[in-house]
């Protein structure tokens, strides 16, 4: 869980920073999007690097979901008779919603790929003009798209808040001070990542990106 999660988080950081290129204008953003397809050239032919990265991330995602499924199934088997009286987990909302949150994020990733990668669910859907796709996709009259993105990103934030702390712990974080630092880092990082992702659709709605 920890290792595959870290791979996915590294991708999210790069993805979030790349998205911010949208504030440098259509030419800059479209050029950046095009560059993503030519990383590694001329050593690698066009889009090879992209497909290698997709393969690595896809494998990490499958391994992540597989580990989560194994843990969830073991948990179910470990308690065959449920408690008649069971208050909610009081530790944290983030820890309590890891599994369903993960399902929501997985569904969102499918929608997100159909929207802005393949363009099937995007009003413009032109892979050569990503800036226009984003500007049209989050247009104010399509407020429900922004709503879906917001819910998904906030869910992701909660997932990362517990996930990052849990990854540190799984990899051997063992001091009380380190635990406080790991929890603070996970919270700070999750908030920063959410803000970095959400600033794009809300900038489109506010008319800063059109």
């Amino acid at each position, binding site marked *: 869980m920890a290792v595959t999660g870290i791979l996915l988080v590294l991708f999210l950081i790069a993805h979030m920073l790349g998205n911010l290129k949208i504030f440098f204008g259509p030419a800059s953003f479209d050029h950046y999007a095009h560059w993503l397809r030519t990383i590694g050239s001329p050593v690698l032919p066009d889009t090879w690097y992209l497909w290698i990265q997709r393969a690595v991330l896809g494998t990490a995602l499958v391994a992540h979901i597989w580990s989560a499924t194994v*843990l969830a199934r073991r*948990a179910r*088997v*470990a*308690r065959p008779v*449920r*408690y008649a009286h069971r208050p909610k987990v009081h530790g944290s909302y983030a820890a*309590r919603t890891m599994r369903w949150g993960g399902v929501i994020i997985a569904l969102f990733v499918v929608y997100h790929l159909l929207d802005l990668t393949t363009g099937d669910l995007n009003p413009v859907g032109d892979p050569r003009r990503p800036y226009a796709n984003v500007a049209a996709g989050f247009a104010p009259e399509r407020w429900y798209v922004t709503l879906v993105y917001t819910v998904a990103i906030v869910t992701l934030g909660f997932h990362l808040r517990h996930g990052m702390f849990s990854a540190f712990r799984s990899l051997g974080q063992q001091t009380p001070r380190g635990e406080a630092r790991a929890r603070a880092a996970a919270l700070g990082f999750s908030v920063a990542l959410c803000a970095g992702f959400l600033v794009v659709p809300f900038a489109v709605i506010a008319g800063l990106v059109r």
Partner: protein
Amino acid sequence: MNLTLRIWRQTGPDDPGRMVSYQVPDVSPDMSFLEMLDVLNDRLTLDGEDPVAFDHDCREGICGACGMVINGVAHGPERATTACQLHMRHFRDGQTIDIEPWRAKAFPVIKDLVVDRSAFDRIIAAGGYVTAPTGAAPEAHAQLVRKSDADAAFESAACIGCGACVAACPNGSAMLFTAAKVSHLSLLPQGQPERTTRVVGMVDAHDEAGFGGCTNIGECTAVCPKGIPLTSIGRLNRDYLRATRERDGVPGT
């Protein structure tokens, strides 16, 4: 105080079990929770009914025998307190209290609130020991232990093996117990020869017993009557990673 108890009654391992309501009048707030159950059992015995079976021994909070889930919380509402040290003053007059056994596949119910915790013994047998020379006791200062290590080891050694961590864990995991036993010995010089085989053996025994996997939620440490910290699980993970990296049987590695 007058209380309504809803207690899990199960005549034996094969009985599906059910919650049964009992009225317990005139409970003194100074009684411990187990004394309140004693009062109920006295009456049930006089009425010719089967008394509620529950585990208990020292009633001083140090043996780890007692343990039941009270209103959904292992050992009841008081922090760092075993059920025997929980007093009725923490409950309200007229309150309904739900009492259930530890619920885990690895802790099968023997009767009512009594569960079989021998899975813990199997985890201990898989590595919770040190090799020690027999004969006269060694001179106490012959082997120096850092104060911080001694303190952390002692903190872990406080585990009484009651099983509340398993009862509270949403995954039904016994990782806090296993981590306490691993860190207790791995922090001390006496525990070093078996350090790698201990953690692997104990985690294997843990999984074989049918406990779930840890997802670092922290419900265990919240109910632990001895306040075993969640960081001990990080120590177990660190030992485990090191043990699985090490090439077993290669001298000098």
